[in-house]
């Protein structure tokens, strides 16, 4: 392999790695705050891509039906819970947060249907439309079992992923989609053509990671999320509701997943069930970061992207096999040191 090819593969790998970074950070964020390993997270990313593709061809995206269905389910559950607790005064706010807020993007989409939108508007709307999915799933599936063990939560999460793939097939159909490139421009750097799209992808990953960091360090809500992750009981004792910080974590992580979906959709063909594989690659990154360490997670996800890129050059049919088997030793080593991290957290 010449050094030119190696450089091109590396750039390609960094671009796809940057996309996995966003999903991987979302995994860590949700896990830290809620102890849920949110397996369907890759699906959220794929659904954003499918939504964007539908808008490009001026069709109504299946996401509308999915969000409406979830919003109604969550509202019914929460109203029932309010009534059981004898808390009639909570019902208006339940209707507002569980029904009205998630349906706002659906309604926007309904009115905008058929109109020709510019690319940024399409992206913004797609992102807005997928945001309610994960928080609603949290309310429907995870909040009733919030005190369960991590293992049980993971099992439920896995089941939820399969349910969501089924819903994806129902709402989006079996066709694969690929959206228009973000831009056709490319720059020549050191004798190589590097597309502007690659820069946009890597740049977005960097910008959103930095925004998230700023949010955690500088805002009270960000600190409350960290506090919940560090010590749930302590958080409750200062008046932070874990259900609230959990919802915030799901929304934030969904922003990241949505952006990754938007970035990946012009690069590869996406099907209703493509999310699992992105999710898995990003998850490997998260495991390398031991599910707690954001910078190491980001590096891990980048590593997966680069490995994948080189592996597909050597043998595209076996690329997953190569990637995941190269990662086995890393995972083994990390799982040994994860034990230590957990022990530290115990004391």
């Amino acid at each position, binding site marked *: 392999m010449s050094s030119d090819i190696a450089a091109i593969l590396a750039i390609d790998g960094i671009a796809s790695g940057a996309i996995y970074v966003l999903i991987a950070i979302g995994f860590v964020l949700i896990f830290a705050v809620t102890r849920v390993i949110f397996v369907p997270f890759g699906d959220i990313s794929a659904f954003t891509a499918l939504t964007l593709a539908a808008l490009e061809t001026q069709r109504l995206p299946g996401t509308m039906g999915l969000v409406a269905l979830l919003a109604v389910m969550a509202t019914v559950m929460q109203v029932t819970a309010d009534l059981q607790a004898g808390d009639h005064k909570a019902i208006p706010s339940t209707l507002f947060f569980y029904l009205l807020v998630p349906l706002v993007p659906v309604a926007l989409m309904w009115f905008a249907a058929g109109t020709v939108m510019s690319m940024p508007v399409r992206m913004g709307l797609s992102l807005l439309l997928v945001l309610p999915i994960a928080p609603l799933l949290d309310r429907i599936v995870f909040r009733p079992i919030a005190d369960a063990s991590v293992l049980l939560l993971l099992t439920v999460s896995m089941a939820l992923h399969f349910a969501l793939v089924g819903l994806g097939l129902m709402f989006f159909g079996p066709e694969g989609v690929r959206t228009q490139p973000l831009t056709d421009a490319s720059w020549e750097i050191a004798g190589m053509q590097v597309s502007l799209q690659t820069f946009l992808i890597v740049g977005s990953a960097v910008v959103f990671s930095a925004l998230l960091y700023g949010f955690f360090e500088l805002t*009270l809500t960000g*600190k409350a999320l*960290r506090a919940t992750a*560090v*010590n749930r*009981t*302590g958080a409750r004792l*200062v*008046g932070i509701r874990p259900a609230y910080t959990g919802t915030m974590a799901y929304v934030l992580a969904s922003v990241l997943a949505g952006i990754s979906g938007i970035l990946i959709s012009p690069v590869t063909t996406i099907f209703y069930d493509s999310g699992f594989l992105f999710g898995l690659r990003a998850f490997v990154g998260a495991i390398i970061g031991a599910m707690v360490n954001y910078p190491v997670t980001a590096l891990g996800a980048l590593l997966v992207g680069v490995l994948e890129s080189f592996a597909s050059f050597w043998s595209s049919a076996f690329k997953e096999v190569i990637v995941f088997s190269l990662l086995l030793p890393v995972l083994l080593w990390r799982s040994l040191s994860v034990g230590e991290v957990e022990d530290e957290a115990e004391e």
Partner: protein
Amino acid sequence: MSLLAIRSLDVSYGKVEAVRQVSLSIEAGQIVTVIGPNGAGKTTLLAATMGLLPSTGEMLYEGRDLRRMDVEARVEAGIVLVPENRELFGDMSVSDNLILGAYSHRHDGAGNRRNLDAVYHRFPRLLERRHQKANTLSGGERQMLALGRALMAKPRLLLLDEPSLGLAPLIVRDIFKIIASLRETGVSVLLVEQNARAALETADVGYVLETGEIVHSGAADMLIHDPKLIATYLGGH
């Protein structure tokens, strides 16, 4: 009307009843102490008052039924617990711990800044260490941080679980001085202590808890001279 009135409280862990038929009340501005041997149920009593443990019986706070309020709602109503194991945010800085202490009043920015200054004034050590992570503090500094974080929540009823645990005698005296001075700012205190003599000297009213039941109660300056208590809890002097 009492600030807090507990009647016939039962708390159990599975089949084990850790608190049985406990009744106690705290008037506004009072310091009330609960003393008793290890395993008597003091921590359990505080956890149930905070809503961390399910319980049966009656609990009224300013006449409001506490049992309908979750932990967070009780914090918003001014009931603040400093638990036995402190529950600090170990991986976060001292100043973040204090800022988060005011989470239940997060919209009162100016008030919280004033309050933060007051806490730093009370515990200059915390000001020195404000950028340090909570889990790197010494035991005594941790106690100060726990108390400081609780004060940031603007408590009306402060529940303290062994605030002098593991502290050097000089600091213990400081801590009890601070507890006594809280009364002047209108804070009522329910104080659980091993250090029975210091607790009774500071408090207005005392209760003695043994194996989950209250066996003595009365004005603190009466209890401190009670021969039976002197023999069991207060030592010879």
